[in-house]
């Protein structure tokens, strides 16, 4: 799923950067038990919904089907829904994994450990 949210293209995405491992570690170490439970409940709900509609699991779906599934849940605004909670949490952690990765902070938006000079005024 993470790889559908931020795909590997000609540059690394969530798949190549193993964003799911970071997401799971954060869930394990930094989330309250009730939120972890809700995440798992939402994941089950999500899997069940996919199975009902496509007669197969998310990973067995084609790339197009996966995009359709994510597009639907990504557009969903109802935060009260467990599946939506699962998705928005996973998406948030995927974005965090990607934007705090060595790849991203070296190649996309460079992080400078030692910036040196601060410029108070730079024209845009």
């Amino acid at each position, binding site marked *: 799923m993470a790889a559908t949210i*931020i795909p590997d293209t000609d*540059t690394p995405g969530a798949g190549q950067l193993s964003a799911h491992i970071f997401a799971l570690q954060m869930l394990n170490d930094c989330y309250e038990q009730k939120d972890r439970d809700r995440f798992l409940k939402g994941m089950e709900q999500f899997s069940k919904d996919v199975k009902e509609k496509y007669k197969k699991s998310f990973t067995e779906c084609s790339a197009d089907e996966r995009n359709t599934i994510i597009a639907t849940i990504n557009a969903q605004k109802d935060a009260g829904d467990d599946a939506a909670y699962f998705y928005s949490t996973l998406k948030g952690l995927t974005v965090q994994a990607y*934007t705090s990765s*060595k790849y991203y902070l070296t190649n996309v*938006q460079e992080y400078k450990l030692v*910036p040196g*000079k*601060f410029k*108070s005024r730079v024209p845009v």
Partner: protein
Amino acid sequence: MGNNTNTFDAIVIGSGISGGWAAKELCEKGLKTLVLERGRNVVHNKDYPTTNMMPWEFAHRGQVPLEIADKNPVVNRCYAFREDAMHFFVKDTEHPYIQQKPFDWIRGYQVGGKSLLWARQTQRWSDFDFEGPARDGFAVDWPIRYKDIAPWYSYVEKFAGISGNKDGLDMLPDGEFLPAIELNDVEKYFQGVVAKNYTGRHVIYGRCAHLTEPQKIHYDQGRVQCQNRTLCQRGCPFGGYFSSNSSTIPWALQAGNMTLRPYSVVQEIIFDEAKNKATGVRVTDAQNKTTTEYFAKVIFVNAAALNTNLLLLNSTSKRFPNGLGNDSGMLGKYVAFHNYRARINANCNDFNDVTSEGRRPTSAYLPRFRNVYKQETDFLRGYAAGFSAYRGIRHNTDGFGTELKQALASKDLGGWSVGSHMMGETIPKESNYVSLDADKKDEWGMPLLNINVAYDDNDEKMVKDFQEQMTEMYTKAGFTDIQVSDSKAAPGLDIHEMGGVRMGRDPKTSMLNEWNQLHACKNVFVTDGACMTSTSTQNPSLTYMALTARAADYAVKEMKKGEL
């Protein structure tokens, strides 16, 4: 009396921002000095394990894992208690205390203490501050005035390295400054709006302990220019900001007279009735729990404000049954702090054609403007405020797939945001006090500290006034989406707890004289936050440094005269 190895000219209890200064001054003046620190040693550069870590090298990207956060709710509320610096904070579980009223006691038990972690703001006090209690009828009169401390401010500023502008303001005297970092355009705009609309209100660059242009004295300490990393809380490999670790402690060591003993929990200061003075200290080794006595002619207590209270309260003798020097019954009382509760955020919809680049270690500052020249509100004293404007890359994360990936690569800037927080003076009161618990002791046999400190009506009025006045200033500046908030944070989270061993002219109503000497035990000096008679609004560390250097100078002169 002890043997030679346990006898020194001076003992300094604590190695934080004031203890480091005591160590440096006493060692430089030739005194054989024992510096006792209850925590582990932290050697500059060697013991900063996270200092060069990249964001992705932190397993939780800075966040504190829940297991640690849940076990340590007090320290977890501190803004700097994050994955990169949590090893420099005392965990609640390791060093319990008793909150008779909610009080977030934030501590750093290591060589350097909280000087590794401080916010590095260094504003001088003025006579509006030293004359405050006498003018407004609270606490007791300070036994010193600005002229007494001004040369010592200069003395410590030159060595520590303070960046600032000469602003020429009555309420915030100028000092010995390294160049300031320029404010950004939105901050300068706000500065102009405030200057145009108000008399006596000023927006200036917040003076801070960073080497913007190091001088020889700083290179001699092994420190170089601040690189604007803003990772100060990890310990700075450049020595870009002032800490005991990067500056005073290695300096004292180099002077050749310092013995630094980490893991030393001072249990009590030993008072000798026949000699009518303190002769030394009793120390429990934090690791093996053995007890040793050390002796010296003069003792500096710099254990951090509330721990200094704890130590003096626990130093009882026939002469001082209620704590060392406590003839007045004032010890532990009139504790005060800074009120940091209120904040105001907003947007600035202009200046879209400019931004800033990089990071910087300070921001703008509004010195106190309430009740400065005369009483004019329904509350006493006033507040200073930090102010900063910032803008950064803002990503739209609504989409997913390649659309989201492209959005995350965007360098488009969001608009400017502005923010300000209050730094309110609180009034020391007898009802705000600390005391020893009668029963409970810690692992090292020290009684636990009861903390009984709370806000009062004056603080509540000040929160409201900050919100109103800043809203008015923001409105005049045309800022939008103004949001005021009150964190309701407990006292203590400001990490500016002060008092309990206050200075004063009269031994009947104060603990220390104008030289930070205990009125009743002249060879004991208290020069950390515990000595403060009132709190003013300015971040207090610079004043502790100056008071310490001044007291050390006096102590050595008195010793030479044979007076101590």
